[in-house]
């Protein structure tokens, strides 16, 4: 039992992943509830659990309808047929799915529910994400568009240029991330883009936010993902002798002063009164997960990270501790993060192959870990995978990382 003083939390206990399910990513033109309910039904079938026996449903909210109230655990419960389950709805931008998993896990470990259904789904608009309408100057997300026209890819471009200047990364390095992920996505039936991509194709695509090109940046997609989680005791009674287990969920916030210009801010915290922590926010997200799981980067068999852009995937290698600062491009070029390497990253194909369906994405990352740890990932199976991590960062200061083991 270990207490971390800065939000890392307490060693808790495992919860079982009884089922995982997804609705394929794409641009289907239908409502998010339909995708979420389809993913939920797939996860329930995979778990062999009847929906009527689920004690709690947790929904990861989308805001695309204008405000989170459009999307809630209750939306999915209604679509699946009201049966009286406890309901929770959470919003944490891109980290919403991990918050949903964290809420479900807490309910299970607290004895409030034996079986919890976690659902995230979205129907994304065409083109750039943008904030909901109206004049809302008190919302930093609205303000950055209105005042600066700073889209999400603009921030990705800033981070990529910074890596080039500080670490000597090149656009060719970035393109190789896309090549790697597209090759895996081509093997994933749930991915939206299922075609291999060459470095030449990345280089020939249009610049969106210098130095990043269209094929460096993830699309926005429709999709849905769901998990059925239970107590270890329920899993045993249910006949799941050796289920995939969630061992840690990190949902930490940054520490003042955060010297990185994170989305959607116009400026960083001032570091004049207090030295910034040596560890970046993103590194602290992973470290809290490692501490809670009692594991380190050397124990990982695979990782699913949030490749909003190709350059950001490289940043995650360093934040996860797979290599030192500035060494990510070398790690990629050596094949360490490719299938067959020491720590394959984004065996699912990543956001490069899925496009982002915001509240579904962190749930989908855990679906991939589940299939990989079961040895059921088909052509993209990472041999002998026993320990996996997901990592992601949601707007406004939402950390997200899940460790799963089997």
């Amino acid at each position: 039992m270990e207490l971390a003083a800065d939000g890392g939390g307490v060693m808790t206990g495992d919860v079982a992943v009884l089922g995982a399910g997804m609705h394929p990513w794409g641009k289907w033109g239908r409502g998010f509830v339909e995708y979420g309910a389809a993913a939920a039904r797939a996860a329930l079938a995979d778990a062999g659990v009847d929906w009527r026996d689920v004690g709690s449903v947790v929904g990861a909210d989308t805001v695309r309808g204008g405000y989170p109230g459009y999307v809630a655990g209750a939306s999915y419960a209604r679509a699946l047929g009201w049966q009286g389950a406890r309901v929770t709805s959470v919003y944490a931008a891109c980290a919403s799915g991990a918050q949903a998993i964290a809420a479900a896990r807490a309910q299970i470990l607290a004895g409030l529910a034996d079986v919890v259904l976690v659902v995230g789904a979205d129907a994304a608009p065409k083109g750039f994400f943008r904030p909901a309408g109206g004049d809302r100057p008190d919302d930093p997300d609205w303000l950055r568009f209105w005042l600066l026209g700073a889209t999400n890819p603009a921030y990705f471009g800033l981070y990529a240029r910074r890596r080039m200047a500080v670490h000597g990364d090149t656009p060719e390095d970035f393109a190789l991330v896309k090549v790697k992920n597209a090759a895996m996505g081509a093997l994933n039936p749930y991915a939206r883009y299922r075609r291999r991509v060459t470095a030449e194709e990345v280089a020939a695509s249009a610049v969106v936010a210098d130095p990043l090109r269209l094929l460096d940046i993830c699309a926005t997609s429709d999709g849905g993902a769901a998990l059925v989680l239970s107590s270890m005791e329920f899993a045993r009674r249910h006949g799941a002798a050796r289920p995939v287990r969630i061992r840690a969920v990190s949902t930490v916030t940054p520490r003042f002063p955060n010297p990185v210009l994170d989305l959607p801010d116009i400026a960083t915290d001032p570091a004049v009164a207090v030295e910034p922590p040596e560890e970046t926010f993103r590194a602290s997200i992973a470290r809290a997960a490692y501490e809670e799981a009692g594991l380190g980067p050397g124990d990982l068999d695979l990782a699913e990270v949030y490749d909003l852009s190709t350059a950001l995937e490289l940043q995650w290698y360093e934040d996860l501790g797979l290599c030192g600062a500035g060494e990510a491009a070398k790690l990629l070029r050596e094949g360490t993060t490719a299938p067959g390497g020491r720590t394959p990253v984004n065996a699912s194909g990543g956001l490069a192959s899925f496009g982002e369906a915001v509240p579904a994405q962190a749930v989908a990352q855990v679906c991939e870990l589940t299939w990989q740890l079961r040895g059921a990932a088909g052509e993209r199976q990472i041999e002998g995978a026993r320990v996996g991590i997901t990592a992601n960062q949601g707007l406004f200061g939402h950390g997200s990382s899940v460790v799963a083991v089997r």
Partner: protein
Amino acid sequence: MITGWFTGEGDGFRLLGTRCSSCASVFFPREDVHCRNPHCAGGTLEETPLSRTGRVWSYTDARYRPPSPFASDAELPWEPYALIAVELAAERIVVLGQAAPGITVADLAVGMEVEAVEGVLHGGGEAESATTWNWRPTGAAS
């Protein structure tokens, strides 16, 4: 819609933030209610001009028209603009802004000195909100 974020004209143009009288943290955009330093009990927040010059932390550009609420005339062809994140040494803060018109990413480098200058807010409309700040390499022609 944004008030008290900058002041002055020409060479006197400055971004405005607020400084905590207790810990000296400088906030931009301005914090007027309470200091955000968790180690600080919180002093009064006093308006303070930010450094006029800083160094480029990073930069990018907008090759495609951003969506609303960014205002632009859809009838006119899109003119990309650069965005610059600038590190102010005295305040130890990074502030994002659009580059002055005519400045492209080809003119920029990480570490280069830039200065805050008066700029025109895209589609600003109302007189009081039609001004904004731009970053411009120091010494570049206006």
